[in-house]
């Protein structure tokens, strides 16, 4: 049971991470910075609960705000860097954040015990949930409450004018500005909201795994973050969710059947997927085909 709860938690966290990149990808900004905002959220929330003894909800919300604010600051210089250069810049940003936390040492002694981030040794003992008597089920429900909220928010965005504006900017900036859309506001907002979401999921992640190590926050995580919406297609929130379930399910469950080869299969899968369905597994054509097929059945 615990095993499945863990899997469900991981799916939830990764779905949020994917959705944080989703909005940005819609505006045409290829950002691998989500791992950086995720890390900021994780360490901030953990420091608040561990060192400052905050309650989890304000801690996670504060982490969200800080990550969002950082994203806001990143959003402006990001405007000057186009296309693939933004990929490199955001990779560099995420690496910088990772290395910053790798070097962060903030030890505090409490009740005779040393706690807090310990530089290269990582940040262990994030025990808020166990200290406060939360069961594993409690954690899962708590986490998924946030996931559902975020999914609803992004789904809403997709179905209102906001979503159409985001995608218009992503498709053709010249045409978009010619009909009165302020590119700066839209792109920086997307980056900021992406930062909020990533920070939120990071804060939750930190408490779920109870110990942080800089290895979790590499470029790899950033590429996962954009892989989910790319595979799931940029027109549908559920596409991202399914992509997360598929990938995490494959990686975790696949362990049982193909052992260590699962990561190799994963890489191969991505290469194949991009060649055959470059617009994602759930692009508009596939979705309408499925819809038509379902209509024929009934």
């Amino acid at each position: 049971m615990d095993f499945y709860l863990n899997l469900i938690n991981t799916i939830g966290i990764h779905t949020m991470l994917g959705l944080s990149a989703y909005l940005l990808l819609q505006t045409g900004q290829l950002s691998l910075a989500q791992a950086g905002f995720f890390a900021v959220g994780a360490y901030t929330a953990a420091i608040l609960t561990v060192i400052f003894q905050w309650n989890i909800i304000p801690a996670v919300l504060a982490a969200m705000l800080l990550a969002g604010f950082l994203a806001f600051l990143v959003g402006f210089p990001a405007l000057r860097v186009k296309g693939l250069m933004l990929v490199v810049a955001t990779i560099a940003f995420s690496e910088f954040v990772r290395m910053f936390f790798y070097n962060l040492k903030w030890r505090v002694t409490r009740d005779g015990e040393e706690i807090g981030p310990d530089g290269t040794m990582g940040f262990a003992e994030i025990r808020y949930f166990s200290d406060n008597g939360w069961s594993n089920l409690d954690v899962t429900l708590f986490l998924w409450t946030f996931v559902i909220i975020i999914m609803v928010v992004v789904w809403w965005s997709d179905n209102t004018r906001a979503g159409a504006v985001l995608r218009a900017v992503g498709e053709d900036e010249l045409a978009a500005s010619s009909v009165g859309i302020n590119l700066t506001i839209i792109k920086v907002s997307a980056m900021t909201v992406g930062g909020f979401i990533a920070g939120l999921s990071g804060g939750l992640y930190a408490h779920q795994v109870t110990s942080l190590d800089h290895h979790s926050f590499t470029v790899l995580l950033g590429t996962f973050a954009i892989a989910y919406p790319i595979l799931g297609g940029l027109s549908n929130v559920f596409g991202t969710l399914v992509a997360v379930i598929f990938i995490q399910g494959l990686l975790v469950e696949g362990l049982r059947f193909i052992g260590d080869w699962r990561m190799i299969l994963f890489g191969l899968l991505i290469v194949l997927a991009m060649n055959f369905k470059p617009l994602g597994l759930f692009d508009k054509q596939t979705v309408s085909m499925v819809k038509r097929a379902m209509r024929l059945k009934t």
Partner: protein
Amino acid sequence: MLKIKSISKHFGGVKALNGLDLEVEEGVIYGVIGPNGSGKSTLINVICGIFPPNKGDVIFQGQSLSGKPTHQRSKTGIARTFQNIRLFPSLTVWQNLWVARNSVEDINTESRFYRWFGKSNIVKKEIKEMLEFSNLENRADELASSLAFGEQRRLELARAVATKPRILLLDEPAAGMNKDEIRDLDSRIRNLQLQGITIILIEHVMELVMGVTDRIAVLNFGSKIAEGNPQEIQKNEAVQEAYLGYSEDD
């Protein structure tokens, strides 16, 4: 309404616009013609703020547009279409208009909240009217990329009109059209004029220009070589020389 004051724009060594002076009065359909490379597209791009001019100024309704970015110019009432259609291909027809429509802050009756939830009846009604005007009502939920060429051009025009402009710049809207489509475009443009929109028509297709415009300016090598009503322009020797390399009297 719109004044082009001694605009010069060069790209490297190429002088696209050279001390151009134009004045477009409110309510007219103003044509701009000239051989290829005479600076017509550059003119639209300068008016819309895509390139700043090297010299000179664009004055719209008495105010200089200098330094204003493109989206702000759109908000002050300048709209345009593109020579090679620039629709949002993965958005539906309805969404293409929707994106352009709410950019204009003139709804005082419905709250922002309603508008952002997509429930604004006023917006729905207006977009429906625009779809009817463009004969695209039954294509509303189709992706813009799946439209036929003529339908795409109509959508592009509708989208520009959706921003509720005071002045509309059309960049070679008749390119690639057959005679029926040109006739249709002619009546649409007149219709827009009746709605109170001033129109600048940049075009090569002479039967459209001569048929629908009130005044025409002729450009060559970035400056104005002639101006007048269609009949005057047709007879103008400088114009003939620019286009044909010789005039009728040669």
